[in-house]
C-alpha cells in the first residue's frame, strides 16, 4: 500500500493539512510547556525534525523484519536511540544551544507525534515516502512551535528572538505554563476560522 502523493505533497501535508500541533493535536506537552520563546520553538523543532526523519527512515528500512507483535517497543527503542544520539552530538558540538535546550531534548522520546507517524506511515510506506513524510511532520511541528512561541514571547516578554521590540511586557501572564493552553486553543480556533472562511469563499466562487 504505497501512498500516491508526491514528495512535495507529503511535505506540505505535514505542515498544513496534518499539522501535528494544530490539526492532529499531538505532542501538546511541548507545545504548552516549552513554547515560551521563538528560539525555544525553533531549536526544539530542529531536534524533533532530525529525530522524526531518522526514526522514519530506520523503521521504513527495517519494516519487513520487525515482528508485528513487538512493533511499539521497537519504535520506542528507535526513537530513544536517535534522541540520545542527537543529545550527545548537540552537547559536544553546539554547547550554547545545548545549555538552553538540554533538558527538553531528552523529552522528545515521549513525543506522541513521532511514534504515531511511525505507526501510521513509516511501517507501511516506502523509504523515500517516509523520508519526506518525516520532513513534513518535523517542519510542521517546528512551524507550530515557532508560531506559538512568537505569540507568547511577544505578548509575555515584549521581545522577539531575544530582541526587545516593545520595551515593556504587555501580558506577563503569557510566559506561564498555564497560558500555553489558552494560546494553543486560541490559535487553533483562529486557524480553523481562517480555513472555514477560505473554504466558504471557494465554494461561493465555484
Amino acid at each position: 500500500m504505497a501512498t500516491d502523493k508526491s514528495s512535495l505533497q507529503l511535505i506540505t501535508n505535514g505542515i498544513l493539512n496534518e499539522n501535528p500541533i494544530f490539526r492532529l493535536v499531538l505532542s501538546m506537552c511541548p507545545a504548552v510547556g516549552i513554547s515560551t520563546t521563538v528560539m525555544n520553538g525553533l531549536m526544539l523543532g530542529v531536534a524533533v525534525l532530525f529525530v522524526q526523519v531518522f526514526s522514519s527512515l530506520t523503521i521504513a528500512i527495517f519494516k519487513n523484519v520487525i515482528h508485528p507483535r513487538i512493533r511499539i517497543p521497537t519504535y520506542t527503542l528507535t526513537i530513544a536511540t536517535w534522541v540520545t544520539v542527537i543529545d550527545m552530538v548537540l552537547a559536544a558540538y553546539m554547547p550554547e544551544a545545548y545549555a538552553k535546550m538540554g533538558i527538553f531534548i531528552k523529552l522528545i522520546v515521549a513525543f506522541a507525534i513521532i511514534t504515531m507517524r511511525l505507526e501510521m506511515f513509516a511501517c507501511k510506506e516506502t523509504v523515500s515516502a517516509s523520508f519526506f513524510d518525516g520532513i513534513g511532520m518535523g517542519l510542521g511541528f517546528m512551524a507550530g512551535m515557532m508560531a506559538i512561541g512568537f505569540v507568547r514571547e511577544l505578548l509575555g516578554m515584549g521581545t522577539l528572538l531575544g530582541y526587545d521590540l516593545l520595551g515593556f511586557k504587555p501580558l506577563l501572564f503569557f510566559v506561564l505554563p498555564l497560558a500555553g493552553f489558552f494560546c494553543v486553543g486560541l490559535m487553533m480556533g483562529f486557524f480553523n476560522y481562517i480555513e472555514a472562511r477560505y473554504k466558504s469563499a471557494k465554494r461561493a466562487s465555484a
Partner: protein
Amino acid sequence: MKDIFTIVFRLTVSCLLAGLVMGATFVFTNKAKLHNAEVREQKVMLGLLGYSGAKTAPASLKLHPVYRYLVSGGGVSSLGYLVPTSGAGEAGYVFVNLGLDGNFLGKEDVRLEAHKAAEANEREAAIVVALGSGKECRYVDQTIVATDNGQRLAYLLPGEFPGFKTFINVILSVDPAFAVTGLEIMEHEEDPGLGGEIVQAYFKNQFRGKTYEALKKLGVVKEPLPDEYRRVLENDRNGGSIGAEEVAQVEASYSGKDIYALTGATISSKAVTNGVKSIVNKFAYRIGILDRVLKEQQIVVPF
C-alpha cells in the same frame, strides 16, 4: 513457541544495534563534551576575576583548586581537604584530615599529577590509596584559590542552592576579605521571563561589592531598580561606555543597600540572596580553619 524465539531474537538484535549506535556516538562525542564544560567553566572563572574579552589574564595568575571530601570509616566521619603543595620533592598534593569540630587529625601525601587531579575518579582513587584500607571518601565540593604572583587575589566558589523549582548552580567570586566580587549563574530552571531573569546582569551584578559585613544582614527589597544603578550594572567592565570612576562611585553608594528583587520573582530573588549569603558564610568559616591548620602543621601551599 516459535514466535517467542523470533520475538526474543529480534528484540535482542534491535537492542544490540541501538547500543552500538549510541556507544559509537558516545565515544566520538564525549571528549568534546567534557572539553566544552571545562572551557565554559574556565571562561566564567576568568570572567569573574575581571578577565574577559580583550583583557586577557596575565601569566602570573594561577588557579589552585582545593577539594573537600567527607571521609568515613570505622564508624567515624571526618572532613578532608586535598590541597596542592609547593615544597620541593613533594608528592604534589596533601590530604589534610580534620575532625568535624575542626581539630587536626592527620595528613597524608597524595601522589597525583596536576592533570589527573582534575578528573574525579583519578583523584578519589589516589586519596583512597593514601588513606589506607577501611576508609571511604566522598567528594563534597571544591574551592579555587586564585593567586597573582603568589598573593591571594580571590576565591572562586562553585555552589548550589535551592531556587524556586530546583537547584540553582552558581560560581561566586569573593576577595580575601570575603567581599563578593562577582556572581555567575551556571545552571537553573527558573521560569523564563520571571525567575529566569536572575541570569541578567542587572540582577546578578547587584551582589558585586557587597562586603562580608553587609552580606550578613543582606535582604531583598521590593522596590524598582534605580536607573543610574541599572546602567552601571549592565555596563561591560572591559570596554563599557561608562568610566571606571563613575562605576566605582555608583557601586559604592549602593554597596550597603539590599538586593532589588526581580519583578514577579521575589522567591527566586530571595533564594539567590540567601544562597550567596550561605555559601560565603560557610566558606569563610571553613577557610579560617583550613588556614589555621595549614599554618600549624607547616604545610607549604602555593596560595
